[in-house]
């Protein structure tokens, strides 16, 4: 036999062995998961691969099956990056699971086409809250955000229910911190103490070959920290831009005010914020804007950085992987009492209570009642308590106790609204800012150089963003016409319910307000010189 033929045989043999082995493993897995007689399987898909989450969902599933022996729940974990493509394939192919995490890859049209509206149930109590303080309260009102995050203003309905909230904090290496600051040294509570940490660390590094960076940074973690300093300094400024007198200024209105010259990067508040960003940003690794999230995590876990800023979503992962104790505190921003940076500050920020990790029931579900039951179970007081106790994520339901290890993440409710920041700009505006941001961390006149670098490109970019915003709003306004025509026709034909009447009123108001806002934006933009 020729040598080549032998190799071909070996090759085919290896492929055959591989095929048989994989078939064996797949079959074995199927057998292990096979549902019992008279049992249905609910499938739930999400992209939360963080440590503890898989386990938390497993616990919820096990408890649910204990209460409903005829239902078992299977998790499908799909990485964030491929989730949108995977989702579209499943939805179009008719193979979508019963419950899907809503977010990536789901716009209003897909929500309407593939998901079940929940308005019929949100007004009624969640049956899984029986025997708790929430027993008689409508499901919607048991959420800390009143289900605001689950509401589609285009469709005027609720399409999901969420499990948790998130806040951002400063994590620090307790052991290293005590080495630098002294045994038992308290965490920095205000900006002056934060600055003291930077100074002490510089002293510590003086005698060391392997220098320790103060804060691990990346294109992801950097803005989480630094944007807050700009927001801190612009709190009073933003309130001055609040023409409609409701203590909130939308991002497009902030951008319009920029174009109208009501603020710019040389405004004293913004300049002060940029100076702060420079001062703090110098304590991140040089060129942090080009580092990835994983790089920052490694820096911190390898004790090459003393601190890292991230959200409550990372607490379990960081605590499990770090070979040192981790403490968590709020980001020490300047308070109104700060002699240098206090004059533009109102006070601490009230933290957003938007609910995340929201699941919707797909219309393709073969077991919609069971899917609704599991969704209600997960978002009941007991179910949510079980979820947060295992995941160490913040609860979404009223009355759920925050576990001790994540107490530091408890949202601040006694606070003022945030000021403006780089994220107040649209996509094009942020691109121009990010392209020039490196100049803010240079040594020579950083703030002036950065500000000058934006002069030429930022205004046209903001204008483009606002034109895009107007286009998006017009699209939504146009869509409402067909929706309203259909709802009104149903009412005219007497095929209506109180829910249809509510939707007619809400859709009509939403359209009028959006139309009013879009025209105002458009005419104001026209009035501003290019």
């Amino acid at each position, binding site marked *: 036999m020729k040598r080549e033929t032998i190799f071909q045989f070996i090759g085919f043999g290896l492929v055959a062995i591989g095929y048989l082995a994989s078939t064996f493993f797949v079959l074995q897995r199927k057998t292990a998961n096979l549902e019992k007689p008279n049992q249905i399987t609910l499938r739930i898909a999400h992209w939360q691969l963080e440590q503890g989450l898989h386990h938390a969902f497993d616990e919820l599933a096990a408890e649910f099956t204990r209460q409903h022996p005829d239902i078992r729940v299977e998790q499908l974990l799909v990485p964030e990056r491929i989730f949108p493509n995977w989702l579209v394939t499943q939805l179009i192919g008719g193979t979508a699971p019963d419950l899907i995490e809503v977010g990536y890859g789901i716009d209003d049209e897909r929500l309407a086409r593939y998901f079940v509206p929940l308005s019929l149930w949100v007004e009624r109590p969640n049956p899984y809250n029986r025997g708790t303080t929430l027993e008689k309260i409508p499901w919607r009102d048991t959420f800390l955000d009143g289900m605001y995050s689950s509401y589609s203003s285009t469709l005027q309905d609720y399409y999901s229910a969420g499990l948790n909230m998130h806040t951002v904090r400063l994590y620090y290496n307790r052991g290293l911190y005590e080495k630098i600051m002294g045994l038992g040294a308290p965490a920095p509570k205000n900006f002056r103490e934060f600055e003291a940490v930077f100074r002490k660390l510089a002293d510590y590094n003086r005698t060391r070959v392997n220098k320790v960076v103060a804060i691990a940074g990346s294109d992801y973690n950097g803005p989480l920290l630094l944007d807050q300093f700009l927001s801190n300094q612009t709190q009073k400024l933003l309130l001055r831009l609040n023409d409609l007198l*409701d203590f909130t200024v939308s991002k497009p209105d902030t951008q319009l005010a920029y174009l109208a010259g009501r603020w710019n990067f040389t405004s004293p508040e913004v300049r002060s914020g940029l100076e702060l960003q420079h001062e703090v940003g110098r304590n991140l690794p040089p060129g942090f804007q080009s580092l990835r999230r994983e790089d920052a995590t490694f820096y911190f876990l390898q004790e090459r950085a003393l601190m890292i800023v991230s959200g409550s979503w990372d607490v379990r992962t960081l605590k499990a992987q770090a070979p040192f104790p981790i403490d968590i505190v709020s980001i020490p921003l300047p308070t109104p009492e700060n002699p240098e940076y206090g004059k533009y500050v109102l006070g601490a920020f009230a933290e957003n209570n938007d609910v995340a990790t929201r699941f919707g029931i797909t219309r393709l579900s073969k077991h919609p009642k069971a899917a609704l039951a599991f969704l209600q179970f997960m978002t009941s007081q007991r179910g949510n308590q079980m979820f947060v106790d295992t995941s160490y994520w913040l609860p979404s339901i009223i009355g759920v106790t925050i576990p001790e290890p994540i107490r530091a993440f408890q949202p601040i409710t006694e606070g003022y609204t945030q000021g403006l920041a780089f994220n107040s700009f649209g996509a094009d505006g942020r691109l121009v800012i990010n392209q020039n941001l490196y100049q803010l961390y240079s040594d020579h006149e950083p703030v002036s150089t950065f500000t000058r670098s934006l002069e030429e490109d930022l205004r046209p970019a903001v204008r483009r963003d606002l034109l895009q915003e107007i286009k998006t709003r017009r699209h939504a306004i*146009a869509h409402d016409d067909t929706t309203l025509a259909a*709802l009104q026709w149903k009412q005219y034909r007497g095929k209506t319910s109180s829910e249809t009447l509510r939707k007619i009123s809400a859709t009509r108001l939403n359209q009028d307000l959006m139309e009013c806002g879009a025209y105002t934006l458009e005419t104001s933009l026209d009035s501003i010189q290019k």
Partner: protein
Amino acid sequence: MMSLPHRLLPLLVWSAILAVSRASDPKLVDKAWDDASMLLVQESYTKFTTAQEVKGGGAREIEYGIGVNLLNLQPKTVRNINRAEAIFTRLIASNPNDEVGIASLYYLARLEQIHRNDPNVPKALQLYAQLIAEHPDHFYAQSAIAKVAILKLCATPTTADKRQALAEVEKLAHLLNEPAARCNFNLVVSTACIQYNLGDEKALRYLIEADTIGIPIQFSEANVLIRIGNLALRLGKRDIAITYFERFLKEFPRSTRAFTVQQKVKELKGAKS
């Protein structure tokens, strides 16, 4: 061996059965409206078209359904918009006074205002005026009043005479007899009053009336309560300010704006005592 036409026979039989079953589906038009009410324009359009082919429902209703779907059928083309215009025009011409005729007049105005690549605002205003004059109490005429207010107050250049526009718009207010339409009108006019400095007193009056009627969207209601509080404060009406700020705190205790409002109430109560 079977020849090609013979092979196609089962397919033809299947298509015929499908067509007959669809024709005999009395709920096809209802389903088409259900789809349209949920943004499923393509599905709705297909159902209406099928119903038209098999004459499965009222001809005017079906044609109207096709028209309102054409406004948003993707891809949005000039041809579709022109088709919708032709449909609405035909429906109005054949009977301007039934539900379809009145609704068609409204959507003809919407088509000119929103759906054309080059909106024709004067034409839209003329059609709205015709609708309001001919059928003042109809749902669509009531809706049209807020649209006229939007076009005159918000869609005109910032340099236009907004006071004159406000005076013209306010002349329509007496025609509003549907509470929800009045609420929307009030919110539009009050926003313009604040935005273009047309009078805080007026804005406050419109807002309070809208709130009394009832605002169907929670987030908008929250904005309105704070706006009333701040406007009242600006006008030196402390009691009104406190009342509305406190109502906001009661109804939206978890809002990120709650603390700011709380501080305002403290300030006001402190100043009062």
